[in-house]
């Protein structure tokens, strides 16, 4: 939602198909993939990750809402900078580069996340290489699109 969803507008197309991870994967493939993840339940307020953490897991938000918090001021207060809904992926940057987590993420509602650690990804790659390749390829494609968008934004779409 934005502030300017005019009532006369029909819903825009759902998520741009190219931004969806594994849009074409079948139920069976998802079952395989999720079989290689560990599911975690979070209660509201429980931290999923804190900034500075070094773990490299990729998380799929299956249920619930998360909030992304950034430190604000010197007294250790946090400010909400984004919220993440069910059906999103978080932690994809650290999954690739191993860098520290850039923000604190907490559950805003009861949430269920599927965690894919580098080790479980290796297991998936051994088990069904095609699916793992597709996963990596999709993540890469989406990150590339983001990069492209970031590059082209300042001068109005030239690239």
């Amino acid at each position, binding site marked *: 939602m934005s502030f300017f969803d005019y009532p006369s507008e029909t819903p825009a197309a759902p998520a741009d198909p190219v931004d969806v991870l594994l849009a074409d994967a079948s139920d069976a493939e998802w079952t395989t993939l999720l079989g290689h993840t560990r599911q975690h339940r979070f209660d509201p307020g429980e931290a999923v990750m804190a900034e500075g953490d070094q773990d490299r897991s990729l998380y799929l938000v*299956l249920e619930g809402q998360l909030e992304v918090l950034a430190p604000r001021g010197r007294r250790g207060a946090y400010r909400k*900078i984004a*919220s993440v809904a069910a*059906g999103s992926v978080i932690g994809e940057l650290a999954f690739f580069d191993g860098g520290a987590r850039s923000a604190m993420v907490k559950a805003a509602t009861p949430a269920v996340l599927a965690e894919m650690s580098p080790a479980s990804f290796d297991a998936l790659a051994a088990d069904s290489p095609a699916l793992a390749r597709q996963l990596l390829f999709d993540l890469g494609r989406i990150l590339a699109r983001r990069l492209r968008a970031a590059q082209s934004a300042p001068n109005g779409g030239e690239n």
Partner: protein
Amino acid sequence: MAGTPVIEIREPGRPPRRVHVERAIEFGRQPAGDGEAVVLDDLAVSRRHLRLVPSPVALSMVDLGSANGTMVNGRRVTGRVVLELGSVARLGQTEILMVGWEGDRAPAVPAPRSPAGTATVAVAIMPTPPAPPRPPAPARRPSPAATLWGWLLGTVPRAGEPLFPAYTEMRRRLPIRAWHGIRIASVVAYLALCAGLWIRPAGGQFWFFKVIVPLLPILFFTAPGLWRNICPLAAANQAPRVRGFTKALIPPDWLRRYGALISIFLFFGITSTRIAFFNASAPGLSILLSLTILNAFVAGWMFKGKSGWCSSICPLLPLQRAYGQTPFAKVPNSHCQPCVGCTKNCYDFRPSVAYQADLHDPDPQWSAPRKLFVSALPGFVLGFFLLVSHPGITLPEVYLRLAAFFLGSVGLFYAVQALTGLETTITVAVWAATAISIFYWYSGVTLASSFATITGIQAAWLAWPVRVVVWALALLWIARTYVKGRQYEEETAARPALPVIQISPRAKKVAQQAASPGAEVTFAGTGKPVKAEVGMSLLALAEREKQPIEAGCRMGVCGADPVAIMQGGGCLTRPDEDEQNTLRRLGFADNTRMACVARVQSGPVTVALKPEPGTPKASAVTAYDRSIVSVVVLGNGIAGVTAADFLRRGHPECEIHVVGAESHVHYNRMGISRLVFGRSAMQGLYLLPEQWYDDHQVVAWLNTRASRIDIAAKQVSLATGDTLHYDRLILAMGASSARPPVDGFGRDGSFVMRAAADAMAIRAYAQEHGCRTAVVAGGGLLGLEGAHALHELGLDVTVLERGGRLMGKQVDERCSELLHGHLARMGLHVEYRAESQALAGEGRVTGVTLKDGRTLGCDIFLAAVGNRPNADLARDAGIAVNRGVIVNDRMQTSVPHVYAAGDVAEHDGMLLGLWPIAAKQGEVAAVNALGGLAGQQMSLTAEVPATILTGVGIDLFSIGQFAAGEGDTTIVAEERDPYDPSYRKLVISGGRAVGATVVGNDPEVVAAATAAVKNRAEVTRQVLADLRRGEWAALRDAGRAPAGNPA
């Protein structure tokens, strides 16, 4: 959904572009054809490759026999295909995306929820204290100082309004008609000024430069919405739209892109020219003003909504946006009825955030000109007033000197930003406040002298109060703008800045299925099984899968949704008694189920949406009263038809006459609102085939009125002159809409909506007279259905509710609030404590006067103020009638052999007017009329009334008690997402479920709650604990075991 389909074309090497498909378009390397053409420079594309053809309901695509073909969503197509929302067609390296519909109707669906939605979910569990009527939560009272502070800074939204309300969500104080009057006056005044400048140049210049111009900025500053409503240019701009002759074109790209720059250029250009030219030349000023209003008018005639002038290139727009960003007084826009979504970040749509949204826009081409304007303003104003007193200065000199001031001001702005790191919104606010302070430093003097000229009172000191007030307001305004900027950031922070990666919804489904095994259901014809959650009804599943299916009562009674179970019937819940009766009445094959109540328990199941014809069965009835030769049923609604059905079942020989005043065979009365806005007329509403009457040897007298009942002679006279003898008579005449006690009701344009003919008449009338506005009296179920239907038809609808909330008799206050919020967002207006007194208009309705004296303009007045049983015939015959025909538990009236059922019958002092109950009563009346079952008279068992509201974009269900009484407990769970509200409430009394309310599409909870409340299920401590954890499935198990006797 009506409107223009919008596609996005993505070609290699070019930025994507959006195209409104208003006419057929041909795509190719050398497209020919008579319509529009899109030339693609791609060798893999044929010369004439494909054609897109729009219609109001679909966008069709046809491949013109191209060499390399066209793929839609990855599949090669042949022949015509419909491009659904979100489809991608690929030809060569070019992609065509179907991205949406743009039209002048609000969509039937609620506002979309973006994939990375902003919903925040809160589960609230509140045991009601055992105190009687629970007062609204006594919130901690803030101290008066805090309240005052909050009010001054605008930190607290007005009661009942969101933080940044859209104009549809604000309280409307003046009716549209009054605004029209004011606008006509303002245009007349404007034209008078233009003329006056020729006749009395000095006078005209005085009024324009010394009165109007000095007053406008303070108006923009304090109540910008007022000016947006009364501006004569806006009135001229919107006149073509109000009169319906605008071409409503989409403005060209350059206008959308450079509109802000054009308006800024015009503003500074005209103002500078004033010093050396317009100040001296009254004719010049008159010509300028005349051209301006002409321009506004032409722009309104050409372009859609306000996109041609008011919201794009009006020279005063940059001022209004900058100064109107934190209004002290909000006045909702009354031009846009309805909103057509014509501009980006529309100021009139959501005034308090439009400018913030501009400044935060990620596209610098959008935000930079707006910053530039404000950054230049203080210097420009100062320069203007320093130069204006120099007589004899030449025009080029004016421009040059002003340019220096302009650049100085801009430079200072960016220097301050660079040095202090102040946020843009704050710098902008400070610059704007400075500019207005400078303006009134000088204009205070002007106003004081104008005051002296007009009144003759010399009061040069007046300049000071003007200056001080403006400075004080300016300081307060900066603070308010700062607070609002913070709030805006808080609110928008909820939106991810970068696109978050989405996983396909399949993942969630799979994960859930791993936890709770679902079932597979296949709809015949699609060939693809779909997953259904356990407990889901086939109707809900079919609707989710967009299968063509009708829905009626959703309780298995009306018979709107029979389906054939081709396979796996045992995987569904067993039919209950209501459903069995309906199935028997419909008489389809044995594998038929009512989709709304057949719930999936396991799989796999295969369902065909078309039921199979049944084989006539030899009647099993052996004993029946042969003395009964003729039974007459007055009424062809659900009670009458059910009665006829049971009569035939219980008596294979007697004549059965069904007399119906309407000209249709039995139809789904609950679906008639669709006749107002849908194009499919009666199709799908008929619940029985015409053949049914013949098959059951029932004589149907359609379009026939009964005129008299003669009890002594046992005869019913028909108005056609025929006479029907009866041995048994069943009265099922139903009810009519109550005529409201409104003077002039009955005039053309005033309607009720009870029968199919009423609904079709409304649609016909609205088209014939080009109706634009409607008032619906009554905020109950029928009123809201009517209001929604009229809204869908494209009318601007206001609902009048006598009480303080919507559907007050069926749902609790929170539900009413959710409902109100939903309707307000759709653009419906609701007036509370409003009762209509009289209809205005000669011959045709033009408006309605309320009891409090207000008048609302409307072309259609729809009354939905309750029902009145059609009991006159019975009363005249001497049958005991109170409000309805009085019946006992056996549906007997005061006269032997005469029974009554349905909406005409008053049972236990109650007139419930509900389908399932009417059906049950029809059955009881018929069985007892024939002497009962096995000599045993049948009695009506108590029913728990339920209310269902669907089809208005929000699902609302309530059964039994909705408010807690003394000592009762309530369990409430709510997800506070304004765009997809979900709310559940269970009322528990004496440890048993006695009432439930569900908002949101949650069929499983509805089913569980219905069963629990119907059986007055015991809510054990375990169940209570589950419910409090949000696990409402627990209710299903509680509802399954009926505990104790139903009350």
